[in-house]
């Protein structure tokens, strides 16, 4: 072994030569092969891997769409339809990209929900969580700008409304909006810069995902019990146990994805976006894509322009400080009898906001949106801090392996023992 070379255990001579000089194979083996992973993951732990695959799908389809897309106000709409009609498999690539955005949000929302339910944001994983929130914000920005590119009515008016949010900023608001637009309305310069940024941001997301995973591999994964593994009996090597379990999840995910793409490709879209953008006529009901609806509802629930915008951004920004709002030492909601129900109510409340965001901003819809907005924030700002002090958690298991053995004893014949998780 020449000095200065990495001490590689790879046997293939070519790979070994590379690994000695740049130990990527050793690294992959360590991080994705033997990486000790809690043995009790349930299927909610698939969604991180699914999100990563979804990002790759979006980047791949996006690159090929960009080969045929024209970012110009007078050509964008037709160029998208040309992709649908004339480019070989263009309809497939475009529908995968379009519905892939929805799939991405479904997957990431479940991933975030899992983190909240099982307390994955708590120490020592605060930075891991914060990086995740950064990814979520970048995703929203990317999705918003991507939706503008086909230059339909919803593209145009969505862009107009969302960029106008910044006009709520005192003093410099209007100048910022003009800067964002590159003109005095959403127009060709806006479309061009959105295309440029829409192409760029996914790679930024990929970079933050790398940091997210790097941070994960320092602390290790949380698990449904929310207690740290106490030794090798509590963990399994990532491969093959979780590579195969993730594979099962990937297939199920692809099947849902395929149903959307092949049988209901426009179900989650809005018909108005098949009308070319018309700066002189706003559609009667303008609604954002479904994944923005909860935040849109919060925006409209607040009667003041600036406060509404602040509430909307605040509803996501509050996630950054969630690790410090919830100071209960118990991670998993399984052992938090009160917080569990309040969080499940918060989940229902999130869907109420989503529903209210799709309704016209009038009458009792406003009232419902306001109540839901109040609960959204109260959960974070009042209930969680309060519960951290007054809630009596249930007794935690001694270790991850322990519940698997409970009731059965050490004898192999104990077929009645139930694993904690369907794994």
């Amino acid at each position, binding site marked *: 072994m020449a000095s200065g070379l990495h001490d590689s255990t790879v046997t293939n001579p070519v790979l070994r030569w590379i690994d000695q000089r740049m130990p990527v194979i050793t690294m992959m083996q360590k991080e994705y092969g*033997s990486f000790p992973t809690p*043995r009790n993951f349930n299927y909610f732990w698939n969604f991180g891997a699914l999100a990563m695959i979804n990002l790759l799908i979006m980047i*791949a389809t996006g690159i*090929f769409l960009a*080969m*045929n897309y024209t970012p110009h106000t007078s050509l964008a709409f037709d160029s998208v339809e*040309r992709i649908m*009609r*004339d*480019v*070989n*498999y*263009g309809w*497939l*690539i475009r529908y995968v990209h379009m519905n892939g955005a929805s799939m991405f949000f479904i997957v990431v929302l479940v991933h975030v929900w899992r983190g909240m339910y099982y307390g994955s944001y708590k120490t020592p994983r605060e930075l891991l969580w914060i990086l995740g929130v950064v990814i979520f914000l970048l995703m929203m920005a990317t999705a918003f700008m991507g939706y503008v590119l086909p230059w339909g009515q919803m593209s145009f008016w969505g862009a107009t409304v969302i960029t106008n949010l910044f006009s709520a900023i005192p003093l410099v608001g209007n100048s910022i909006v003009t800067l964002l637009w590159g003109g005095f309305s959403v127009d060709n310069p806006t479309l061009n810069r959105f295309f440029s940024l829409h192409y760029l941001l996914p790679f930024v997301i990929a970079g933050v995902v790398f940091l997210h995973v790097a941070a994960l591999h320092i602390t290790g994964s949380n698990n449904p019990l929310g207690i740290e593994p106490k030794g*090798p*009996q509590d*963990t*399994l*090597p990532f*491969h*093959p146990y979780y590579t195969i379990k993730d*594979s099962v999840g990937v297939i199920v995910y692809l099947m849902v994805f395929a149903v959307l793409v092949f049988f209901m490709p426009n179900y989650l879209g809005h018909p108005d976006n098949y009308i070319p953008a018309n700066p002189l006529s706003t559609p009667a009901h303008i609604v954002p894509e479904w994944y923005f609806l909860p935040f849109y509802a919060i925006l409209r629930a607040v009667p003041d322009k600036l406060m509404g915008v602040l509430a909307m951004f605040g509803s996501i920004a509050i996630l950054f400080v969630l690790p410090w709002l919830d100071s209960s030492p118990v991670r998993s909601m399984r052992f938090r009898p009160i917080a569990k129900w309040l969080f499940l109510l918060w989940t229902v409340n999130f869907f109420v906001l989503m529903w209210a965001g799709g309704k016209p901003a009038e009458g009792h819809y406003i009232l419902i949106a306001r109540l839901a907005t109040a609960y959204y924030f109260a959960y974070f700002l009042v209930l969680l801090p309060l519960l951290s002090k007054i809630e009596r958690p249930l007794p935690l298991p001694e270790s991850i392996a322990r519940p*698997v*053995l409970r009731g*059965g004893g*050490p004898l*192999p014949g*104990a*077929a009645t*023992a139930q*694993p904690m998780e*369907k*794994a």
Partner: protein
Amino acid sequence: MADTLAPSSSPPVEGGAHAPADGTKRDFLKLVAGSFAAVGVGAIVWPFIASMNPAKDVLALASTDVDLTHVAEGQAVTVMWRGKPVFVRHRTAKEIEEAQAVPLSDLRDPQTDQSRVLREPWLIVVGVCTHLGCVPLGQKSTDPRGDYGGWFCPCHGSHYDTAGRIRRGPAPLNLAVPEYEFRSDTQVRIG
């Protein structure tokens, strides 16, 4: 999955460390599942590659009509067809004679003049040098036409004769003859 784990057994580190009978069955399953997955990945790659081939509207590109009325003897016009220049040359009797007189044994890419022309005196060739795709000179009367009176490619010095055949230089083939038809004495449709 109802089996319980004996407390003493630590989790296996490698996938292969199991009872052999079980292992064989698993390996076969793995092989089948792996092959299926590989087929799937292969099938996913294809649409992406195919999307880079010419789209349907590109393949359906219109043919180009050329009006020959105003092309005098000795003159040439260049028209655009499928994004490429097409040379239409009204050859003089001398040029035709020269082209026909060349013995095939002198040619790198042997083709008779007659086989390259539908109707005299019109020579119609794609104006793209068969070496590396430059557009040869020789359409304008002021252009250099090379040592054989046809076209001369300035990029790497290929000389073409009055039938558009390669005579000297690096190009391997004669200038290509596109598909075309005479719709009347003065109307040609290329493509």
